[in-house]
């Protein structure tokens, strides 16, 4: 299995723990990921607010590069990138005017975007291409006793994802269970973390992150697992501000890929738990048999 890999800006910046943990996990599962040649920023949500034509063209450049590379499946781990690339595909299919504008713009640099590539999320690939059975086979240190609140955030399931339910997604739940973790049921799975409002309008934005952290603790979670660099940033890096404004809500937020690395028994520098501000409670010692297997 080989995928074109679109990391996006966050995975090279504040969200580097996502990339640092996802790449080894995928490699461990025998998945090849080839970083897209000279990719550019997808445009995220901010660009849409300025000019949707340019936003689509910028995103389409990436899709065009992917098509040129011959890899039809584009793996976009960041939720915003996943949404924007998907949205671009939809716009190009649904609106002939937009398709024309973008095609002409790409033509000036000799690129073509036919809209044939599929934009995929790692969760989609893990469950539907690789399969939970293959994942389970790689688990050497089951996350026994670890209570995880799966947090999907908004943009991977809404509004374009087809691989999971938009209101009550379960792909990460099933993945975490395969890793041996206990999944905490909570109704905030897909609630907004505040997005970029945590920086621009902290009173409104941070409150949403605060509610998530508070409710996860209340439901007995040890850790929150996320799929989005912005969610992780908001729930992790803003802890001091949230404690100062409301109350301390000390619960770590990690990427699901970090928990996978942990369960696969990958070395610490591939699990990169040290990137989080709130330390994760150490796991129970591995069962002797499992330890021997390692």
């Amino acid at each position, binding site marked *: 299995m080989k995928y074109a890999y679109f990391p996006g800006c966050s995975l090279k910046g504040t969200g580097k723990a996502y990339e640092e943990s996802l790449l080894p996990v995928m490699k461990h599962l025998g998945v090849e990921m080839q970083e897209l040649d000279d990719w550019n920023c997808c445009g995220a949500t901010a660009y849409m607010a300025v000019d949707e034509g340019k936003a689509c063209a910028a995103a389409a450049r990436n899709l065009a590069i992917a098509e040129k590379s011959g890899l039809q499946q584009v793996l976009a781990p960041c939720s915003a990138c996943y949404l924007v690339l998907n949205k671009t595909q939809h716009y190009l299919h649904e609106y002939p005017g937009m398709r024309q504008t973008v095609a002409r713009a790409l033509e000036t640099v000799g690129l073509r975007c036919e809209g044939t590539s599929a934009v995929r999320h790692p969760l989609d690939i893990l469950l539907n291409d690789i399969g939970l059975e293959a994942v389970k086979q790689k688990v050497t240190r089951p996350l026994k006793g670890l209570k995880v609140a799966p947090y999907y955030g908004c943009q991977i399931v809404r509004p374009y994802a087809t691989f999971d339910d938009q209101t009550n997604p379960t792909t990460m739940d099933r993945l975490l269970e395969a890793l041996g973790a206990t999944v905490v049921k909570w109704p905030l799975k897909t609630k907004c973390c505040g997005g970029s409002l945590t920086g621009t309008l902290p009173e409104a934005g941070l409150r949403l992150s605060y509610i998530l952290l508070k*409710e996860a603790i209340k439901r007995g979670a040890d850790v929150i697992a996320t799929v989005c660099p912005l969610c992780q940033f908001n729930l992790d890096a803003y802890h001091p501000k949230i404690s100062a404004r409301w109350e301390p809500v000390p619960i770590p937020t990690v990427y699901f890929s970090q928990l996978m690395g942990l369960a696969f028994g990958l070395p610490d520098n591939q699990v990169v738990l040290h990137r989080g501000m709130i330390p994760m409670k150490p796991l129970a010692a591995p069962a002797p048999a499992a330890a021997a297997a390692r």
Partner: protein
Amino acid sequence: MSAKKEELRIGFYVCHCGHNIASMVDCVAVARSVEKLPGVALARDYKYMCSDPGQVLIQQDIREHKLNRIVVASCSPLLHEHTFRGATEAGGLNPFYFHMVNIREHDSWVHTDRQEATEKAKALAEAAIRRVAHHKALEIKKVPIHPDVLVVGGGIAGIHAAMTLANAGKKVYLVEREPSIGGHMAKFDKTFPTLDCAACILTPKMSEVGSHPNITLWTYSDVTKVDGYVGNYTVQVKRKARYIIEDLCTGCQDCIPNCVFKEPKFTDDFNEGLGKRKPVYIPFPQATPQVVVIDPEVCLNFKRGKNPDGSPIVSDKCKKTCVEACGEKNAIDFTQKDELKEIKVGNIIVCTGFKTFDAGRVPAYGYGTYKNVYTSLEIERLVNASGPTGGEVILREGKNPDGSPKTPKSIGIIHCVGSRDKKTNIWCSRVCCMYSMKLAHLLKEHTDAELYNFYIDMRTPGKGYEEFYNKLLEEGTHFIRGRVGEVTDWAMTPEEEGKLVIRVEDTLAGVVRRIPVDMVVLATGLEPQADAGDVRRLFNMSCGGDGWFLERHPKLAPVNTFTDGVFLAGCCQGPKDIPDTVAQAGAAAAEAMVLIDRGYVEQEPNTAFILDQECSGCKSCIPLCPYTAILFDEERKKAYINEALCKGCGTCVGACPSSSIVQNLFEDSEIFSEIEGVLSYD
């Protein structure tokens, strides 16, 4: 034929239909243009051709101007062809010397350019003029009507239709899928807006049906096959094995307490899963017929798999205490098999009803996730004195400190669940506003709880309905205009702890609110039965895009279908309340009686026949006929058509390689001249 010698004298009439046609088509210009065509003796335009004077005009012209063909350009032939054929006949001509041009539905109503619409009308008129020249005198066939009627579905619609017919002396077969008739109405506690008890008004009618000499009641039965046509339907009914001999069961129900299962432990569908029943059960106390049923899926006597024919294998594991209790009545028969019955009827009334929307399809409202979220039908059973709790409203989850079940102190009723939503059902289900208010009233009466109704628009169009709304306002029920965003169980404030929280925009106040409640009721909408598609095919009806059965005309033929002799009543045609359902059932019964009392139906003489000398005997046509109306004379090596079986589709005519089959009313020459006519414009 002598008609060939006769000079063609066509009378042409173009109808203004008030402004309906005249505003988009220049009727005078059309008449003037047609006037010049060969064979046309006169061309007139007139305000309303279908009116009495319009018809009289045709009759007079036939006599005074010796017309021998009539063409009317007006509305759709499906609406008024019959009218004008009548006028033609009254004028002394064979009615099939008439042809109709549709310049309203197919022209003036769908186009926006007057000139183009006028040109189109001229071309269509010319086609008809050319066509009618080829028309022949035909005779209408009269086919006798079988006087018996089949009513499918035993809800209030089917009950009322069957009773109406039976009281008029007609023989009725009432077929119901469930073990008892009564339908959804039997589950209701009270009915809006009068709040009379549903059981009190329904059960007398049910038992009347059960005992009426003119009604053959077959419950626990499915219609499996329908053949024939208006007046002469042959229907196959499968009577599912209920393992009880209906004639022998007295309804004493002694078997039920004596079942080897001491406690009821199987899901009770009649109580919407809120109660339990045994393998041998009667759906509800007033069930009609008063005959028990044995559920082979759970009865110990059948726990041995299936026979090759699909029937369950009877085992000897069970002590059969039920049989003992039944004693010498001997009504229990474990070897009973499904039985196929064949009946002949002349008319069919379809009253197959609706199903309620599956609330789990709106995950944001938490049905299935939070136990204290209920559907409206569950609440109907919960407030019902003969329901699973004896009419006590208690929560599924949560106990009082003393361990007793909790009653809700605050209740939110969410309207329009599954309705008015493009993701689920786009239609308004019509009854939910009213039944939600009814439930609000009943819940208030039972619990004295704080009640909130969340609605998008309040729809109370009915006699006494708005007054009922007023009554609820007086009772202090809160009405919040806003579609609920979500129901969750996470608390932001101390008073929200342990409650279900409804988040909604109070659109009239213009604020977003969070309202904690103990119980949420989802006013689920109505949707077509899951097997409506199969039923539709069975009876050769049409469905609208939304899945409801389609009436022949939304205003003028609301209980007719496109198939003669098949009528509709009740919610299978679309959501409606009980008064409307009953009115429709009466109307359908009356429509059936029209046919029965007339005694015959007239059949379009559009059957096909074979020109003997032309037939090459290739047999291409024979397998094409779905009615096996085409036979082959082996001796003469010629095909021939049994006119009685021919339905007039013309498929064989279109396929005959030697053009030796002719369809009356749709002869090749008629259609070719029509093609020529419609292409006669520039």
